[in-house]
C-alpha cells in the first residue's frame, strides 16, 4: 500500500508525543522538572518524553572533568593573605596553544633575584580555547580548569591575577576526586622528602 511507510513513521512520532504525557504521569508526585533527580532522569538511558532542560531555570550538572577558562588556586593563611600555588615557572604559558597566558615574574626588591611567585598573571579569556593543557601539565597543581561557564560579557575579557584566584576549598568542591588524588600524591612526596631529610 502506498503511504504505509508514512503512516508507520507517523506512528513513531505519535508514540513520542504520547510518551511526553505518559512520562509526566509516571512521575506524578515526584518533581520531573526543576529538580536534580528529574534532570538526571531526563538525561539517562531511561529518558523518555521531554528531553530538554529549561535553562537558565534548570541547569544540567557538569561532570567533574568539565573544563572552562582556568583559574589559579591559592591557599589562605590564618590572617587572610592569599598564597598562590603558582611559582611562575611558565609551563602553562609555554604549552598554551593560543598563547593567551602572560606571566610577569617577580623578583626580590632587595636582592633582585627572582622569587617563585608571579607579579602578574593574565589570561585573555576571549582567546582561551578551554583545552585544559595548562591544568594538565602544571607540576604544582596551581592552575585548574573552572566549572563556571557563564562568562558572557559586552566587552573584551582579560582576567588578571585577582580575578583568576580562587581558594583551594573551591577547587576541592568542584573536583573532589582529582583534588583527593593530588593531595595524596603531594602528601606522599612530602613524606618521601621528610624521610630523606632524616
Amino acid at each position: 500500500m502506498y503511504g504505509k511507510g508514512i503512516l508507520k513513521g507517523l506512528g513513531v512520532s505519535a508514540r513520542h508525543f504520547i510518551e511526553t504525557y505518559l512520562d509526566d504521569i509516571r512521575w506524578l508526585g515526584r518533581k520531573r522538572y526543576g529538580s536534580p533527580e528529574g534532570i538526571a532522569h531526563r538525561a539517562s538511558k531511561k529518558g523518555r518524553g521531554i528531553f530538554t532542560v529549561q535553562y537558565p531555570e534548570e541547569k544540567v550538572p557538569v561532570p567533574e572533568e568539565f573544563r572552562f577558562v582556568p583559574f589559579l588556586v591559592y591557599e589562605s593563611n590564618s590572617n587572610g593573605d592569599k598564597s598562590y600555588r603558582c611559582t611562575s615557572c611558565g609551563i602553562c604559558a609555554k604549552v598554551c596553544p593560543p598563547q593567551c597566558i602572560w606571566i610577569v615574574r617577580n623578583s626580590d626588591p632587595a636582592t633582585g633575584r627572582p622569587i617563585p611567585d608571579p607579579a602578574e598573571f593574565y589570561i585573555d579569556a576571549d582567546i582561551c580555547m578551554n583545552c585544559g593543557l595548562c591544568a594538565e601539565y602544571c607540576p604544582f597543581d596551581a592552575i585548574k580548569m573552572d566549572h563556571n561557564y557563564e562568562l558572557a560579557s559586552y566587552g573584551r575579557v582579560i582576567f588578571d591575577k585577582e580575578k583568576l584566584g580562587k581558594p583551594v576549598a573551591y577547587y576541592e568542591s568542584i573536583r573532589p576526586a582529582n583534588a583527593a588524588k593530588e593531595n595524596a600524591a603531594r602528601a606522599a612526596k612530602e613524606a618521601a622528602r621528610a624521610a630523606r631529610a632524616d
Partner: protein
Amino acid sequence: MTEADMKTPIPNEALDLPALFPGILSADTRPGYSGWIVEKDNLLEFATALRDELGYDYLSSVTGVDYLPEGKMEIVYHVYKTTGGPGLVFKVQAPRQDPVEVPSLISIYPGAELQEREAWDLLGIKFTGHPDLRRILMWEGFAGHPLRKDWKEAYFEEEGKPLKSRWPEGKIVQAEDKNPFGDNIAYPDGFDPDKGKYEPEKALYAALRESQQDETGLPSDRIIVNMGPQHPSTHGVFRVAVMLDGETIVSLKPVMGYLHRNHEKIGERNTFLMNMPYTDRLDYLSSMSNNFGYALAVEKLMQIAVPERAEYIRVMMAELTRIANHCMAIGALFNDLGFFFTPLLYLLEERELILDIFEAVAGSRMMCNYFRFGGVARDLPEGVLEKIKGLCFERLPRRIDEIDRFLTENEIFRARGIGQGVLTAEDAIRYSAAGPLLRASGIPYDVRRAEPYSIYERFEFDVAVRYHGDIYDRYLVRLDEMRQSIRIVQQAVKGLPEGPIQTGKPQYQVRVPPGEAYGRVEGPKGELGFYVISTGKPNPWRYHVRAPSFINLTAFGPMCVGQKVADVVAVLGSIDIVLGETDR
C-alpha cells in the same frame, strides 16, 4: 573472466619499482622518509602505469611541501588500492620558483581536482593541464601563497610557538591593539577594488560556462544561480554556483573558503602537542576521530606504542563519535529534505547522550582534546563505563531500530532519494570519494579493514556497503555503520583491560625525530589523513590534513549534473560535509 585471466596482485614488498620503471624513479633515502621520487617529466607515464598495471586506483592525498632551505618544492602523492593493503607514496620535486610547474594528474585521477587547486592556492604549485586551476580557499586577488614558508600572516610574531612575548617577557598585548596592516600585508599588482577592475567572480563563471555540455552550440537561456553562502541547507557558509537550463543543472561548482583560517599554517606554528586541540576544530562534530588521526601520525614519527587500555578507550571513543556524527548527518539530511526538525531532534537526543559521555571523559562535549601521543589524557572516570554500557547495550540499538522504522520506508524520502544523485562505483573511485559516499556506491573500502590501525583487527564487524550509489543508499550505509559501531563498542567494553593509559611520563614538549608520517583513520566522513613532517624541532615543518569532507566535494558537481535544482540540497546533505573541515 576465467580464473587464469585474473592476475594475482603483486604484494607490496615484492614490488621492485625501480626495475619496473628504470631511470624515472629513485627511492627516497632521506632519514625518516619513505616512498619514491619520480622524475617530473615522467610523472604522467608513471601514474598511468601505477593505476592500470599495479592496481593503485585510489588517489588518497595530494599535497605540497615547501623545502625553503633546500630551494625546492615537493609534491607528495599517496595512492592506495581499493582492494585494500598498504599504500604507496611517491613524490615529485621541482625547483622552488614562482610558480612551480608540475603536470596535473587530473586526467588519470580526477579526484586530484580540488586537491591540486588547494596546492596551487596555498603553495603556488601550478599544475599544467588542470582545466580549472583557480584559487579555492583564498579569494581571487589574494597576494601570495600562504603555506609557503616565506609568507607571514598578520600579527606575525615568530616562526613557532611558544612566543617570547608571553614567556619569558610577559607583556599583555591584544591582537587588535596592534596594527594588522603593519609590514606583512600585501596586495597583488593592479589590485584596486574601487576602480571596477577587480572581478573576483569572473573566473568562476567562466569555469561554469566552460564545463557545460552544449550540443546545439546555440545560445540558450541558461542562467547562473548562486546558492549560499548564507543558505540554511549548506550546513554553514558554503556556496554552490550552478548553471541551470530551466530547472535542470548543467554544471555546478562548489565555492568554499569562507571559514578558512589556514589551519595548516597554524599547525606549523604550533608545537606538536599544541596542535591537538586545534584538530578538534576541523570536523567539529567528530573531534575524537580527528584526535585519533593526528595522534597516529605523530606516534608513527615518534615510534611509540600505545598501552592496551588506551587503545581500547580510543576505539570506544572513535566509534561513539561515528554514531554521534551519523546521527547528525542523517538528521540534517532529513532536515534538508523538508522533514523539518522531527528526525533531527530524535537523533540529537541520542547524540546528546553520547556527548554526555565525552564531557565526563574529556571535559568537553565537542572540543574533546582527549588523545595524547602514546595514550589518552586521562582514564575513564568512575561511572562512565556503566553509562557507555547502558547506551550501547540497551538504548542505542533500540533507538536506531526506531529511526529505521520511522524513516526508511517513508515514501517521500524514497521518492527523493532512490536514483537521485547517483555516483557509480567507477566514478566514486575516480573522484577519490571516501567513507559512506564510497561505500554506498558499492566499494567495500573501509580503512579499519583495508589497512587496520590501532586494534581494529581484533574486533568483529562488517563493512557496511550498498550498491546503488544514490542518496537513499548513503542513508542506509550510515544506518548500518551506526549498528556496526555499536557492535565494536560492545566488544571493546567487554575486552577493556586494566592498566596504564599512557606510555611514559606525560610531556608537554615531545621530542619528534625528523621524518615524515601519514596517519590515516576511517573518520565518520571518510578517510581522514594527517601528513606530518618533522625536522626534529618542536614545531612540525609541514602539517597537512587530508580532509574527507573537502575531497568528497570533488564528486559533488558530477553527481548533480542532470538533476533538478532542488536536489542539490539533498545531494549535499547526503555527502555530509562540515565546513570546519572543508575550509580548514
